[in-house]
């Protein structure tokens, strides 16, 4: 109780001063504040912002833990120190060795992401004199999961400050942003430091330093392989589903993302409409490409053949599609707000993701750009959905008066 009382004293001492929001935030984050009501009938909503955010984080924790093991596993596998894991519970995967390497590489990403992001949130709260908002809790967790494991920490810090300031604070903070901050951060990294965000070196720890030496190891992702018509690089469908493949830290395991998604839908935090419709959108686009291959418009000599001929449902398992759909497209702030709008918004995200993925070899993954694009269009979609409803009801009203 010592710390709690000390924080409370500080809070009283700094009441109305500039630094007050900073102390209040630490206090309410760690403890229930002293000013809670005790008697009488008060209605308390259980789904406040803090709880919403924490639920999303809980859904992501399995991905993070899996990502740590996978980082170590891919490193050791590339070095040839262990054999390929057989299935999700393979004995070479869940080992202490893998976890130690993973912790060593992934924990700094988490610390930098939260440290820099929350520092900026605190600074803005103090300048503007409002309470520190919980919005960064989820963003801070998303960021380490969607970057390559070997990204230099200073680059991450620069990108996080850019994303939080330009992506969120200039619009007025949590709840006012147009673009998903985590994706703004990733897009910044992608365009600022493309050599660290794509290619066949960054996805496996150690591959960058070893490039060009006799010890060189490769860390090509499945998408990268397909884009160069090299096939799925020997990974089978179950590998893709379990996520025992190279990729960004936390986005490889479709299985755990699926569980996280079900958890979000069950707790009514994430919108099932967006998730379902974007899966449908991706499948439709995949089917169109498969059909184009079937009627021999695109032949094996084409550079698009590798990705177009991929069985349409495999698109759901590889790359960041599953992660983006479950955790980023459903962001309640930047997504469409109306139910009909959510269907359109989700469908277009899936549809455009796969289109960018196939047609643009410079961007081997399209889900980031697709979600950012649809973030921009979400208010427009809502506007037309609402207007259509207004029109429909006006018509009904007229019929009655006539």
């Amino acid at each position, binding site marked *: 109780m010592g710390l709690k009382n000390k924080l409370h004293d500080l809070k009283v001492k700094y009441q109305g001063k500039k630094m007050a929001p900073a102390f209040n935030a630490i206090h309410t984050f760690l403890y229930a504040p002293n000013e809670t009501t005790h008697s009488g009938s008060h209605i308390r909503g259980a789904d406040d912002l803090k709880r919403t955010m924490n639920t999303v984080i809980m859904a992501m924790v399995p991905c993070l833990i899996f990502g740590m093991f996978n980082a170590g596993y891919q490193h050791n596998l590339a070095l040839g120190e262990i054999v390929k894991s057989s299935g999700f519970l393979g004995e070479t995967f869940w080992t202490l060795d893998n976890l130690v390497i993973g912790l060593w590489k992934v924990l700094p990403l988490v610390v930098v992401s939260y440290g820099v992001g929350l520092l900026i949130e605190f600074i803005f709260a103090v300048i503007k004199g409002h309470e520190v908002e919980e919005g960064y809790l989820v963003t801070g967790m998303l960021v380490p999961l969607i970057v390559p494991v070997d990204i*230099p920490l*200073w680059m991450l810090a*620069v990108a996080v400050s850019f994303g939080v300031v330009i992506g969120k604070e*200039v619009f007025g903070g949590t709840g006012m942003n147009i673009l998903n901050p985590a994706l703004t951060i990733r897009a910044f990294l992608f*365009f*600022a*430091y493309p*050599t660290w965000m794509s290619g066949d070196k960054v996805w496996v720890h150690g591959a960058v330093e070893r490039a060009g030496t006799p010890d060189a190891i490769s860390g090509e992702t499945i998408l990268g392989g397909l884009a160069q018509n090299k096939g799925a690089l020997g990974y089978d469908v179950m590998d893709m589903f379990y996520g025992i493949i190279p990729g960004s830290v936390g986005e490889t395991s479709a299985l755990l993302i699926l569980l996280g998604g079900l958890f979000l839908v069950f707790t009514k935090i994430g919108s099932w409409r967006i998730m379902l419709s974007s899966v449908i959108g991706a499948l439709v686009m995949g089917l169109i490409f498969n059909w184009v291959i079937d009627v021999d418009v695109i032949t094996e000599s084409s550079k698009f053949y590798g990705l177009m001929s991929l069985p349409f449902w495999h698109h759901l398992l590889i790359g960041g599609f599953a992660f983006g759909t479950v955790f980023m497209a459903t962001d309640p702030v930047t997504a469409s707000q109306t139910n009909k709008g959510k269907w359109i918004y989700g469908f277009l995200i899936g549809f455009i993701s796969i289109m960018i993925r196939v047609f643009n070899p410079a961007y081997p993954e399209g889900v980031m750009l697709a979600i950012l694009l649809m973030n921009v269009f979400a208010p427009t979609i809502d506007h037309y959905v609402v207007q259509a409803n207004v029109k429909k009801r006006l018509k009904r009203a007229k019929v009655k008066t006539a």
Partner: protein
Amino acid sequence: MGLLSKKDRKLILDPLADDNPITIQVLGICSALAITAQLKASIVMTVSVIFVLGLGNVVISLIRNIIPSKIRIIVQLTVVAALVIIVDQVLKAYSYQLSKELGAFIGLIITNCIIMGRFEAFALGNGPWKSFLDGIGNALGYGVILIIVGFFRELLGSGTLLGYKVLGDPITKTGVYAFGYENNGFMLLAPMALIVVGIIIWVQRSRNKALIED
């Protein structure tokens, strides 16, 4: 400054900050985004615009009473076009490489809305000396922003200033590159120029609250 009266000074100094053509009037954004990837190009563009706008304002001001108002736009265009062609030819003659780098953008000074804007708003209603000062002032205000944006974009995007490697050599890893620093490729893309201009507007308006509009 005995040379300039208080009013004349205002004509030059106002566009530099509180009535800046780019950050306050939000004109001429297109060229500010397109050519500011390098500091040198920004400076050449600034000098060219100072020449065109300063001289153009004087010419328009001198003939303002004999231009029929129905065809004034086409007369203004003729004047700008003539001046821009002079700039273009001088650049081609004395600095061919730079002229090639700037490409169409020197020619496109014609379409820079700041120039037509000043002709319409100032030169048509004021004497040649005042018009000259107004032209120089607005061109300088435009140039200041161009040079600030060009400075940051070249420094952070390429690690150079005016072509000199100030941050070290990225290939042989000297200077700050030895510590793992890398150039920010986003700085060389036009969207980042827009963000830099946005940040300048943000800083300027938070320092001078009178500039904030509702």
